[in-house]
């Protein structure tokens, strides 16, 4: 598809002369935000982190909305904040590009297709659940799902910089939830409090988390 990368500068210049043009600019921007995030949401399987390369290509290379450094900054901010990573990213970029309406457009685009697809599956899967073949297929899938959740633990441990001196933290967290049935909410709150106290006591010992990805 042909795309003029200078269109925003051109339209912005015209905007000063013509109020009507402002509406064109705004709706174009929101439409593009929606379409970009619709693509990011509808064509990636496997969750938020799989979306990063596609997002980078769409937002940095194709639309040229951000520089690569800005993109990396938003990336680490979205990872640090609570919530679904992809939606956080959409919030960041929507906010940056189009204010509140931008946020709504980006998020709506991002989750529209997934929600529609899941709803269709949820409604119709109930009728197939008791089918013998479907049951056999899912007997094979269930152990794989457990493995798929267990496998990222070690990869994440590396990127979160888990070492011999602090590996007791995730071990205790896992045991609390697994053996004693403590709610993860309390574990998260305790970790936040611990981190804040540690930072207050130790000062700037904590390393900068620029490369955390």
């Amino acid at each position, binding site marked *: 598809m042909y795309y003029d990368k200078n269109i925003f500068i051109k339209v912005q210049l015209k905007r000063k002369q013509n109020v009507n043009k402002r509406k064109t600019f705004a709706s174009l921007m929101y439409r593009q935000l929606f379409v970009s995030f619709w693509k990011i949401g*509808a*064509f990636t*399987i*496997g*969750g938020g982190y799989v*979306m990063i390369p596609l997002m980078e290509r769409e937002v940095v290379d194709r639309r040229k909305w951000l520089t690569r450094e800005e993109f990396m900054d938003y990336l680490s901010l979205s990872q*640090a*904040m*609570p*919530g*679904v*990573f*992809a939606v*956080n990213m959409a*919030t960041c970029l929507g906010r940056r590009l189009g204010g509140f309406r931008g946020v709504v457009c980006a*998020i709506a685009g991002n*989750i529209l297709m*997934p*929600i529609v*697809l*899941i*709803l269709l*599956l*949820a*409604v119709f*899967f109930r009728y197939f659940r008791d089918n013998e073949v479907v049951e056999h*297929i*899912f007997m*094979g*899938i*269930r152990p*794989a*799902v*457990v*493995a*798929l*959740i267990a*496998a990222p*633990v070690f*990869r*994440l*441990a590396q*990127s*979160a910089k*888990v070492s011999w001196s602090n590996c007791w*933290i*995730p071990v205790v*967290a*896992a045991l*609390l*939830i697994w053996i004693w049935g403590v709610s*993860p909410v309390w*574990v998260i709150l305790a*970790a*936040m409090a611990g*981190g804040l106290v540690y*930072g207050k006591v*130790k*000062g700037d010992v904590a390393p900068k*988390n620029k490369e955390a990805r």
Partner: protein
Amino acid sequence: MILLRLFWIFLKIGIFTFGGGYSMIALIQNEVVEKQGWMTAQEFTDILAISQMTPGPVGINTATYAGYTAVVNAGLPAWQGVAGSLIASFAVILLPVIAMTLVYNYLSKHRDNPVINSMFRVLRITVVGLIAAAALLLLGEESFGVPGFNKQFVISVLLFVGAFYLSWRHKTSPIILILACGFVGWIAYSF
């Protein structure tokens, strides 16, 4: 009534999810399976499998599907299930989006604040344990069959080890692994 509870619980899940969809799985499992008893562990595992195979963020997919299943399991009609799934996915993103917009300016200015950095560092470390707990809680008879030298258990353990190795060492795509294991299950149990 269940719709209100759904909203409140997924609101809570949303704001306490740090570190992406996989840590959200631990929270959803804790609330929906253990505390509220809205579905069995087996149903939850099936939801996870389908959420990972469909496009979109895993957290949103799981919330949407779990919301629907919880309402329909409570004996309510399907259209209320659709409402439940929309409520669950809306609730799960509501507070994070507000928080994100609020700290957008603040945190981009104060990125090098040592106290905040230290908090996020400890959180990232803790989330590793959270995800491990989600996997440990799913290691049960619902996913593997009765332990012992029987057909289902042996096949399940083999599939688990194979999928774990491929995903960990070779980063094989989840959809390929799930499809392959489903195929193996169909062949092994049907004939």
